[in-house]
């Protein structure tokens, strides 16, 4: 999100944009269209499903509160049908309540609704280039969950047991506001490997199936068999 990179030409890149608030939808659509993306807009869950029926998009940007359903279901379906599609949540506040639940079903980061048009385009470009953005507040939420507490902290459920110590160190660095370069030098990594680690973190936080969810619940001691 904070790194601008020169991606490939954007003509062929399709973006499905799901947002029920019309002015916000226009705004985002404008920003993306001006950057050269091919945008399919939808205002409801049903419209979004119709858009997806036309074929796999490269990117799915979706709001969570939709008039006829929840964006989380859309993300889960898309992730299952089109594993190569990059998914991002459109959020007003970038709060973990909405973002984490989206991450656990396959989203990779979020886009703020009031972001400047240039930032919107840059974020999508980075996403397509394989750079998954992660914000300091989301990193903070994840690393706070890795610390052992006597009772489960409030907020959405999150399983961090699969994260490696190195990945947790990277998250700490991001949460404290360090740049990728600073984190890499602190941890003795190459700067280029940090986005890969972040992608891996997103994948590890994802709960793929119902069976896996049960297994993880047992692992965490939430369920006793």
């Amino acid at each position, binding site marked *: 999100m904070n790194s601008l990179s020169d991606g490939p030409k954007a003509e062929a890149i399709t973006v499905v944009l799901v947002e029920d608030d019309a002015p916000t939808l226009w*705004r985002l659509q404008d920003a993306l269209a001006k950057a050269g993306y091919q945008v399919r807009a939808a205002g409801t869950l049903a419209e979004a499903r119709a858009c997806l029926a036309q074929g796999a998009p490269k990117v799915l940007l979706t709001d969570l509160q939709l008039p006829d359903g929840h964006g989380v279901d859309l993300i889960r379906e898309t992730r299952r049908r089109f594993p190569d599609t990059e998914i991002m949540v459109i959020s*007003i506040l970038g709060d973990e309540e909405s973002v984490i639940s989206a991450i656990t079903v396959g989203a990779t980061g979020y886009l703020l609704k009031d972001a400047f048009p240039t930032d919107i385009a840059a974020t999508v470009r980075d996403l397509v280039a394989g750079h998954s953005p992660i914000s300091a507040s989301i990193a903070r939420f994840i690393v*706070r969950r890795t610390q052992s507490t006597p009772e489960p902290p*409030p*907020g959405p459920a999150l399983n961090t047991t699969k994260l490696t110590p190195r990945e947790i160190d990277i998250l700490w660095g*991001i949460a404290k*506001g360090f740049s990728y370069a600073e984190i890499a030098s602190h941890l003795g990594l190459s700067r280029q490997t940090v986005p890969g680690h972040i992608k891996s973190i997103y994948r590890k936080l994802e709960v793929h199936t119902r069976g896996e969810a049960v297994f993880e619940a047992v692992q965490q001691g939430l369920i006793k068999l």
Partner: protein
Amino acid sequence: MNDHGDDVQPELRGRARRRLRSSRLIQYLLLQAAITVAGVAVLLQSLPGPPTQYQVTAFQLTEAGAERAVTLPYFSPLRNAMNDPPRFRGHFVRPAGEASRAWSVFLPRFTNGVEVTVNDVVILDSRRDPAANRPDRNTPAIAVIPASVLRDGDNAISIRLFIWGPITGFLDRIWVGPDEALRPTYNLRTLVFVTLPVVFSSWQAILAVILGIMWVMRRHEPAYGVLAAAMAVGVGQAFLQTPMDETPFSRFNVILISSAPIESALVLVFALLLSGWKWQRYAWIIFIPGIALALAGLFGNQALVRALFLILAVPMVGISLLIMAVVTARSALQRQNVASFLLGCAVTIMLTCWIVDLLSVFQMMPNRIFTARLSYSAMLVAIGAGLTWRFARALNQVDGFAGRLVTQVREAEEKLKASFAREEERARAAALARERTRLMRDLHDGLGGQLVSIVALSERGNGSAGIGDAARAALKDLRLVIDSMDDIGGDLMLALGSWRERAMAQLRPHDIALDWRAVTAQGLPVHPELRPWHVIQIVRLLDEAVTNAVKHAEARRITVRIETLVDADGLERGCITVEDDGRGFEIAPDGGAAGAAKTARGLRNMRSRAARCGAELELSSSAQGTHKGTRVRLTLPHRFPDSDGAAG
């Protein structure tokens, strides 16, 4: 240590223990021997007598029909001589000119009764004095001779000695002389042999009451009950009278004779119980002599009782004393028990007196002063002292226990308080998190969405960029409020991380670079006392600094330095510096900015925010030179204040 060490060590320890025990035994025995020697030395001292010039010792004795000359003191071989008592006839001389002074006859010691006649007039019959009738008491007798009976020169004195057992008769030397010369000796003997026993008997009565109450309150300790019974028997024995005449009640009086064996049996049982012995049924044999004597008193005659007294009561007392000496010695040595030790010493004193008394009965002593009963007072003193000692020790134990209890309760209370505080803190954090979630949802559903719409609409209209900026600023502030409510565990760096993102998003459209420098590796120290309102003040202060740089300074680059400073006392303090390369401004003498009123207000806000958090704010700005620009330096406190009271 080799393989044999484990076998050798206990043996060595056992030997050391045996050596210690035997040395203690020797010490104890030596002490008891010293007590015995001292006791004998005291008993051999003869009591002071009146001037020897008034002593009358040469008498003509008529005994069992035979008449002969004797010198007092005289031991009669008879055990019973009531109808034909031995009669002593003698003379004394009253010098001329003594008529003005009262003359008396003083008989310091006799068994069992005397009748004194001067010049054929009876002046004293001791049988009417119950105390004098008891052979175990050394009651003296004195009688003033009526002046009319006396004459100058030679006077006749005659003494009849009544003997009724159980021991043989005895008459000590007598004195006849001025009353003032004889009376002091008489008074001394009365004090020692009459008054003192009464005092001790009173003491015994008090002990009986105390021990009785103790036993009633502590029924599981029968030792106290037994001792109370012994004391009660002793008191009854001391204060009940024994008339000489055969009356219908004299049979009951005769029970008193059995008091000595019963009392000694009770005291023996007490000593056994005190040493940890458990009551056994066969132990009733201890009481057989006493009961036999009592039955004999009820159903037999006095002669039988007196005969039995010698063969039952006296040995019973001695045997009891011997057993007690062994038991108390063992108890004193094994348990290192002060009460047993005192009792042991008292038993030694009593045993010594008992043996001396026995020798005196068998006429192996020059005189006949019985001290066994008197020495019983040593036992009473020991019992009183032992009781007090046990009571004091029990009180100390209670105090110690109470003290321990108080400490434990205090510790438990502190633990509970700490756990309450922890629980409260956790509940507070949970409540805050719940509130934050609720607020977030509300803002998400309402205000947030509306603000986003305003931003979008203002951008479409193109003519109202100010509205869009304001809406965007409102959204930014909303995010800050939500963010600062998150539990960051006292690590301000986590709040600064989010702030950096927001600041970068704010600066990007203005093409201002944000240079982020964490000078020290860990960034800022962790403050467990950090609260959301501290965070919001600090972040808004930093926002203000950045906004000033954007709006007024025309800066191209903003540098944020984060470091931990260690002051002279070794205390760590965080320090955040925001520096721009903008125009700078003149700082007025009052600390505010000269010129622009808006900037001045911004600076005042920053100062107030810093003061509320207990932080120090340092502002420097220069409009010219190579180092032009503004620098805001915020030094965080070592400990954040609990309340907002520092607002200024």
